[in-house]
């Protein structure tokens, strides 16, 4: 607990484990999520969804549904003017395809919406779904990536081979020669299973046309208020001003809500057509099988090493199963670009070439699940290190040490064209390895009970985040994200309202942004209120994703606060008849250095508003400022270690203990940082051992509930100890680096590394996630190296 100082020296708020101001309302049950927003007259929407993975729609008959009392309308694609959303990259390697808001002509995955039913209750809307009939002629679906070669019918006619994006961003003519002459080449294929982000609150929205404002007001659970506005405006042919997006509390995002879904557009369209308020809340079946998924990828890699275990070069062929459509606004290029660009992680790789493709399938589209391709590339890089260490007889930590980018290498520029700002890559590795020793894990491995085997894994990695326009521009999206602006206004009672276009989904922005501003204004954070998630209240912004909010949004707030501080000091100087340079803002007061003179900031605020005639030389009235930030992007880094145990009887895996070294630059709130790390690791453990959005060969989803899509519970979580290093970022005023994804990124690599350590006596390696008990059983059945030799 932190108590407010009442007197004495100034309190520094950045760095304090301040309890979050958001907490009280969530604890009382008075947080307001989208489906909690009251509306006495809202109609309820439900979607008629395709039970067929791939086919041509012959007919849809909605008439029987309209007979049901309480059903107001059933709309199909034609009723929406065949509206579409198109997420695309403006580059030759990208094939542009549209996603119809409601299926038009073809269905491309099970769960694709065919029609939207509007009724007086969700119960009646669901009755009506049953009454809608349709005829669909089926094609053979494309489920696995290789199916595309076998099936004559392409998913999109524009892409006959099913490849929507094919990037060869990195080429190296000498790579083959280098690999051919390397001491060893590790040649492996790694795979990762399809996942669903599964925030506890699914998607939802409430849309209403307001004549008075000539505006469609859409309350929606999203991470991207302004991009949702743009998408809805484009799809419905409205001006930006005619769409107001309001985001109330968001029950988890994880990238799953860094997108505009067709359902939200359909609900908005229905509200506009009917001129009646309409609401929709996704159920879990829809969320798991008919929204967005991600992570289904395959990496075929060849990595050359010298005899000493030093990397000579790396060739990668990356394929991502991006599902049936390119999502708006980040597109199906998201995973392939991220994988290719950031593959090399914390390692010095002299030569690098990659091809990365996004392949369409009859599954829901992929979007930006937390970490985007980084969990896989780290799993691959660390897997290569472990394999090479084994082949060369080098210790697993030592081989990483030999390849890691070191302090003296910064600023380091790799063959991926990225310049890395300083990080603590080697320090993190050394600290983590030392902690493993200190925690006695080796001993614990040897102490496994009969019938149990244990192993230790280690993974050293970075997390690129806070991509500004300079970096995002390279992707060639029609809208280039990256900057943020912040507006600050102090009112007559001395309280400050801050607006930002970033949008919290549980990260605690109301607390951490206030900490940053408080330090610069010399007032307590509880005097600062962040307003976010309303396109009419905030000027513009790019929302929350990729560890950008506190870095860019918070960075912009810091600039705005610095400017507001200047105004406060100038007013104080005039009121106290001193020079503004001699005034400092401390503990709620403007204080003259060296003298005892001071005036409270509350008093300044009151004077500026109510007695402005006393202030003769101000150019502007009021106390308002704005700031902006647009860093190019930066790398946080970390090293994880895990101790795992395999029960040879049941083939179950338990993570017994977990160590984290994290460097995210300046820490604004340690509670929040550690919370992000722990939560991310839980998702990473889920991805490695439990979760998979699996499909039958005919494209039917097999994980449609939390009984089959296994989100980890408290029982699956190990104790996690977290150690911090702090290499400040030089791109922002705050020194903060983003860090929301590190847990999710590191966990698959480290658990896989630990499992392979546990199974090292067998001549087999796990190179995919999720690892199921069946995989373990298969490996345990293999002869051990001793038995086979």
């Amino acid at each position, binding site marked *: *607990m932190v108590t407010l100082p009442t007197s004495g020296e100034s309190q520094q708020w950045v760095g304090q484990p301040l*309890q*979050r101001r*958001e*907490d*009280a*309302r*969530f*604890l*009382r*049950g*008075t*947080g*307001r*999520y989208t*489906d*909690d927003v*009251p509306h006495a007259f809202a109609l309820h929407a439900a979607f008629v969804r395709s039970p067929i993975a791939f086919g041509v729609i012959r007919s849809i008959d909605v008439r029987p549904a309209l007979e049901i009392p309480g059903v107001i309308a059933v709309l199909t694609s034609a009723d929406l003017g065949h509206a579409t959303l198109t997420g695309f990259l403006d580059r030759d390697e990208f094939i542009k395809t549209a996603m119809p808001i409601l299926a038009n002509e073809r269905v491309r995955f099970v769960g694709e919406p065919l029609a939207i039913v509007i009724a007086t209750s969700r*119960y009646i809307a669901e*009755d009506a779904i049953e009454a809608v009939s349709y005829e669909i002629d089926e094609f053979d679906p494309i489920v696995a990536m290789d199916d595309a070669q076998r099936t004559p019918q392409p998913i999109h006619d524009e892409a006959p081979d099913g490849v929507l994006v094919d990037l060869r961003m990195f080429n190296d003519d000498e790579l083959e020669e280098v690999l051919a002459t390397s001491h060893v080449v590790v040649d492996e294929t790694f795979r990762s299973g399809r996942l669903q*982000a*599964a*925030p*506890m*609150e699914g998607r939802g929205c409430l849309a209403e046309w307001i004549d008075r404002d000539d505006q469609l007001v859409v309350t929606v659970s999203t991470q991207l208020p302004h991009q949702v506005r743009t998408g809805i405006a484009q799809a419905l042919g409205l001006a930006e001003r005619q769409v107001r997006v309001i985001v109330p*509390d*968001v*029950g*988890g*995002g*994880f990238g799953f809500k860094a997108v505009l879904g067709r359902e939200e557009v359909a609900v908005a369209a229905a509200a506009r057509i009917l001129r009646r308020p309409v609401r929709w*809340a996704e*159920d*879990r079946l829809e969320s798991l099988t008919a929204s967005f998924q991600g992570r289904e990828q395959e990496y075929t890699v060849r990595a050359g090493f010298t005899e000493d275990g030093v990397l000579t070069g790396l060739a990668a062929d990356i394929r991502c199963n991006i599902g049936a459509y390119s999502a708006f606004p980040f597109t199906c290029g998201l995973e392939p670009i991220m994988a290719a660009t950031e593959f090399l992680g914390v390692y010095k790789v002299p030569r690098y070439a990659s091809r990365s493709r996004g392949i369409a399938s009859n599954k829901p589209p992929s979007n930006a699940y937390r970490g985007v391709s980084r969990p896989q590339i780290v799993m691959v890089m660390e897997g290569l290190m472990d394999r090479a260490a084994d082949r060369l007889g080098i210790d697993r930590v030592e081989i990483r040490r030999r390849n890691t980018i070191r302090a003296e290498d910064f600023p380091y520029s790799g063959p991926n064209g990225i310049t890395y700002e300083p990080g603590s890559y080697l320090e993190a590795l050394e600290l983590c390895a030392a902690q493993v020793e200190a925690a006695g894990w080796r001993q614990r491995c040897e102490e496994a009970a009969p019938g149990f085997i244990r192993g230790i894994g280690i993974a050293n990695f970075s997390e690129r985040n806070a991509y500004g326009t300079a970096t995002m521009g390279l992707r060639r999206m029609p809208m280039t994200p990256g900057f943020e602006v912040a507006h600050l206004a102090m009112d007559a009672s001395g309280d400050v309202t801050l607006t930002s276009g970033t949008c919290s*989904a*549980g*990260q*605690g922005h109301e607390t951490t942004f206030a900490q940053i501003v408080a330090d610069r204004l010399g007032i307590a954070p509880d005097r600062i209120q962040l307003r976010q998630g309303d396109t009419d209240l905030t000027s513009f912004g790019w929302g929350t994703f990729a560890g950008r909010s506190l870095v860019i949004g918070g960075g912009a707030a810091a600039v705005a606060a610095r400017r507001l501080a200047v105004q406060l000091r100038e007013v104080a100087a005039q009121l106290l008849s001193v020079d503004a340079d001699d005034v400092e803002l401390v503990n709620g007061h403007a204080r003259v250095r060296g003298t005892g003179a001071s005036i409270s900031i509350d008093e300044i605020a009151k004077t500026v508003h109510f007695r402005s005639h006393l202030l003769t030389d101000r150019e502007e009235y009021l106390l308002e400022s704005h700031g902006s930030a647009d860093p190019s992007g930066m790398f946080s880094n970390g090293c994880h270690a895990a101790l795992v145990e395999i029960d040879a009887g049941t083939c179950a895996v338990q993570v017994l203990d977990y160590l984290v070294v994290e460097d995210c630059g300046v820490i604004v709130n340690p*509670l*929040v940082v*550690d*919370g992000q790390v*722990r*939560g*991310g*690791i*839980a*998702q990473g453990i889920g991805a490695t051992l439990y979760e998979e959005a699996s499909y039958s060969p005919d494209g039917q989803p097999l994980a449609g*509930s*939390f*009984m089959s899509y296994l*989100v980890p*519970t*408290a*029982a*699956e*979580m190990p*104790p*996690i100890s977290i150690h911090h290093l702090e290499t400040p970022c030089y791109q922002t005023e705050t020194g903060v680096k983003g860090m929301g994804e590190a*847990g999710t990124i590191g966990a698959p690599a480290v658990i896989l590394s630990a499992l392979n350590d546990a199974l090292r006596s067998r001549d087999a390696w796990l190179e995919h996630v999720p690892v199921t008990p069946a995989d373990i059983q298969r490996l345990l059945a293999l002869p051990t190296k001793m038995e086979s030799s």
Partner: protein
Amino acid sequence: MSESREITLTVNGERHLIVVEPRRTLADVLRIDLGLTGTHVGCEHGICGACTVLMDDEPVRACLIFGVQADGSSVRTVEGLAVKGELTDLQQAFSRHHALQCGFCTPGFLMLAEGYLATTPAPDPVAVREMASANLCRCTGYQGIVDAIVEVAEHRFRQRPI
């Protein structure tokens, strides 16, 4: 759709007379008919526990119970915890231990823990973790939730009337 029925329900000490369709879930009765939206719905199939409320002091999944089944019972929801405005010891411990991020799962965990602590006065941390595994949280990784409940259990046990 069969005939709607009249039920009486005491929620957080207030008596209500409500007309419901037999298929209407208790979660919808609380959220839609009574406006108590603190009870969240995360799965509607009994796994996530976001909808956990106390029905006659027992934790139940409000998504799996029909309103008509709750006829005559007494229900306590998250809104009934901080009755006099001040957060309860458990709610305060959740904040101290950062046991919540997005807060969507929080009401369910609070009610689950309250029901549990009422019948299990001195649980050890392993038992608390096991109990907490009844509900899902996608944000926190659970450590803060377990720590908060353990701390409150110990504190309440020490403070119990002898």
